[in-house]
């Protein structure tokens, strides 16, 4: 069972209390961007076998969106953090590096 700690209300919530919201840190492309950028933004998704960053919503709780760093191979959770950021904070990256020294995800290392 997947258990994530909501970074806002501090509740350790299990899956039924949460809603998965897909890939984190998407950069949005709208009018003025190229076809390729728009295509990638809409349809291309990171689908790694390993470290992954995702959006989750504490839907049956405080109702807020947050981010989680997770391993898709082991279901291990490296940490959760605020949605008010464009990239994973350093402490989350360090927590991942401690367990997966070679990890990388999109442009993040």
């Amino acid at each position: 069972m997947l258990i994530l700690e909501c970074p806002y209300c501090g509740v350790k919530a299990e899956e039924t209390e949460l809603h998965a919201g897909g890939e984190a840190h998407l950069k949005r492309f709208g009018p003025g961007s190229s076809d390729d950028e728009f295509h990638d933004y809409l349809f291309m998704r990171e689908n790694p076998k390993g470290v992954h960053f995702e959006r989750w919503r504490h839907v049956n709780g405080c109702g807020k969106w947050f981010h989680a760093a997770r391993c898709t191979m082991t279901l291990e959770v490296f940490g959760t953090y605020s949605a008010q950021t464009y990239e994973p904070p350093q402490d989350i990256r360090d927590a991942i590096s401690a367990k997966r020294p070679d990890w990388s995800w999109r442009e993040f290392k």
Partner: protein
Amino acid sequence: MKRYSVFAVAREALRYHSGWERAWRSPEPKRHYDVIIVGAGGHGLATAYYLGKNFGITNVAVIEKGWLGGGNTGRNTTIIRSNYLQDPSAAIYEKARSLYEDMSQDLNYNVMFSPRGVLMLAQTQHEIRGYQRTAHANALQGVETEFVSPQRVKEIVPIINLDGPRYPVLGALWQERGGTARHDAVAWGYARACSGMGMDIIQQCEVTGVRVENGRVAGVDTSKGPIDCDKLGMLVAGNASVLSEMAGFRLPMESVALQALVSEPIKPCMDVVVMANTVHGYMSQSDKGEMVIGGGTDGFNNYTQRGSFHHIEETVRALNETFPMVSRLKMLRQWGGIVDVTGDRSPIISKTPVGNVFVNCGWGTGGFKSIPGSGWGMAELMATGHSSLTEAFTIDRFKEGQFIDESVAAGVAH
């Protein structure tokens, strides 16, 4: 390859069954093949089979990192149907369904195809309209389906409860020619036939790298050494993203877990397949008597081949309402598979940015039923560069905006 027949059974009965040969050979890989297929599941083996049968290409290797048919081919709920809304889907699934009809004769291997009928329940007004529309579309496509009344549903499935507390049964889309088949036998039958044509099926051979030279694939690196090829076919379902990155291109795909479970075996009580898409549950009874149950996918990316318990709970709760007798059953086994889901929930059967690499993936929750049609089209695409069966399923359709929007028509359960 010795043929299986009543005479073979009689012959072996007279000599203590000492003459049966292995169904397929397990050779060491050669240095070079005309075609390498990665993934010895149903789709990979079917592609290899039709390459040999329809196009005479038999210098083929099918390589598999685990064991043959051990992925989603061995993990699905074995439902076969073709009652899709959109023309390209109906065409390929109906091709598959019709190939299943004489597959046992074609492969000389009993795949136990059982055209017992598939019933898709309409439990909301929205679903009634959707399925009536599908029935009309199917009539134009030449796929035999019918929208039936609740009374007819009760005749077909006496154990059903029409007046559920949340979702009463308001009608159903009935495809009498749909049904089930033995999923392992489909993989084994294709493997035996491929091996009989001289193809090499190499199990426990993991692809560790794809060698791309001048925009073309020269070969693959595997745990059994490098193997060269002229053409490469990728049919690895949930691992498609991983393999495509090795070849240097990306796929619009996410991998999630889909679960199924079976009950203890009971006496025959339901001789059709019933799907209830509003409440995410589908059920059929296997030849052993187990009730085979499937539900919805998990919401998050996952490669572990196991899913969340609460999805099973949801599925079983839904089936309890529709089939009250299920509440007394003990569940025996539960398992998960990793399904590859695209942006429009339809598969990708396509050429790729790497010239001689072809990809067949994205079947998501509906792969088993399409195995022969998928293999038929994929083989034609790989041999000739074009297939009318697969042309709508290109990678480019996302860029062009030409989606095959079946997720609306098919609900969740495929």
